[in-house]
């Protein structure tokens, strides 16, 4: 036992001595970063439509904008059944690769009518977001990320949102160089790549099963 440990403190040892000058007391400064603990998440439950429905929710870009596409997909559970009471939210860059946000260090998106955020309930198990195909986005280290959309999935039976990304099948070259896709197996990558359709792209989301979508911890 250290000679600095107070004999006046019951069970004192080098780790809990509370005299002035120890890390626990008296210096006036914290010995680690002071952080407030965050509020824990909870499920949206079955009635999310009451609070989270917007008339223009699906419109990440204003209707009628040149180049608009629909990003669609079905959300399925571990039985392969559709999830008809969930919600998908999307967040993405504009075709120039810029975000409609002041923290984009290159300047906010200048694409008229572009919000970059879509919110779609999944009636019948399907989400649908009206948007523009995003451009490539810097990866922050001198390289590029392939065009992508971040998705959050919320539903009864999910105690927190789950996060995934949509990439585009017709961007093979950019996808091959993407730092996120590069870290995944071929089979994992396939769960994130949307295929072209008549009016845009489609990516189905599998919450579980052999084709379980790759979800990300952010």
């Amino acid at each position, binding site marked *: 036992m250290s000679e600095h440990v107070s004999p006046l403190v019951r069970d004192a040892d080098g780790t809990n001595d509370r005299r002035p000058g120890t890390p626990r007391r008296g210096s006036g400064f914290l010995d680690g970063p002071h952080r407030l603990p965050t509020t824990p998440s909870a499920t949206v439950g079955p009635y999310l439509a009451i609070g989270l429905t917007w008339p223009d929710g699906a419109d990440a870009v204003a209707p009628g904008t040149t180049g608009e596409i629909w990003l669609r997909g079905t959300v399925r559970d*571990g039985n392969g059944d559709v999830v008809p009471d969930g919600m998908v939210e999307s967040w993405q*860059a504009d075709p120039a690769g810029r975000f409609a946000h002041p*923290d984009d260090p290159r300047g906010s998106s200048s694409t008229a009518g572009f919000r970059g955020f879509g919110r779609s309930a999944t009636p019948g198990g399907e989400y649908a977001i009206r948007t523009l195909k995003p451009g490539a986005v810097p990866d922050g280290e001198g390289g590029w990320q392939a065009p992508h959309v971040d998705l959050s999935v919320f539903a009864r039976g999910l105690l927190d949102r789950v996060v995934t990304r949509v990439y585009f099948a017709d961007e093979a070259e950019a996808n091959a160089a993407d730092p996120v896709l590069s870290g995944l197996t071929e089979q994992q990558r396939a769960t994130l790549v949307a295929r072209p359709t008549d009016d845009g792209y489609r990516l189905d989301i599998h919450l579980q099963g052999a084709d379980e979508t790759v979800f990300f911890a952010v």
Partner: protein
Amino acid sequence: MTGTTSSGDGGRLALPRYVREDAGARTPVAFPDYRSTGLRAPLRTPVDLPHRLTEITGPVLGEDRVAPGDADLTLRAGGEAQGQRINVFGRVLDSDGRPVPGALVEVWQANAAGRYRHVVDNWPAPLDPHFDGLGRVVTDELGRYEFTTIKPGAYPWGNHHNAWRPAHIHFSLFGRAFTQRVVTQMYFPDDPLFGQDPIFNAIPPAARHRAVATFDLDRTQPDWALGFRWDIVLRGADQTPFETDDDGDVA
């Protein structure tokens, strides 16, 4: 707060990193006693996604999402909702203790009898013609929000025999980054139904109190409404690289 800086050397960006709570203090996606998680919560371990531009930005939503009267849920369709009138208020902060101004807060809840105005909710409690259960506000410059509503009732559900949800208000929040997004539920103090509720008990024990509002006599309005305070903490941004060379010298 932006914390975002461009060093200008060929596209290298110094971006903030939003701190994530340890897994032991976060609600897990799956919890076996909450049976619906069984077929819906993903089974594979999520892949770590470093925070890049897409994750450190997020939708800018404000007053255009809010209609007059959205902060007072007790007046709908020309009349007063039934039930115990309450004020629910607090601050939205990040984990560094900074207020989050301009944050959209969306709430939804059951009526005083525990019934939601939703086609799927058909348990035999009365609907209230003057209550739709929807509220929205944007936090002020100090991160404060306030709703006037009625205390929601408990309601039964099919999770297990004699299962009842404790009274709760659903909250949905946007900070300023994709990583800060959270949807959660606020509970009322000392609810006897906590012990049997798997959604409440899915929260790790040490974090459960953060989901429970506090009765506030000072904010209780005489002859009008009870006050309940609930502060909400979103993830904060870690230090930028420019703040790390602290030599411990304090002037």
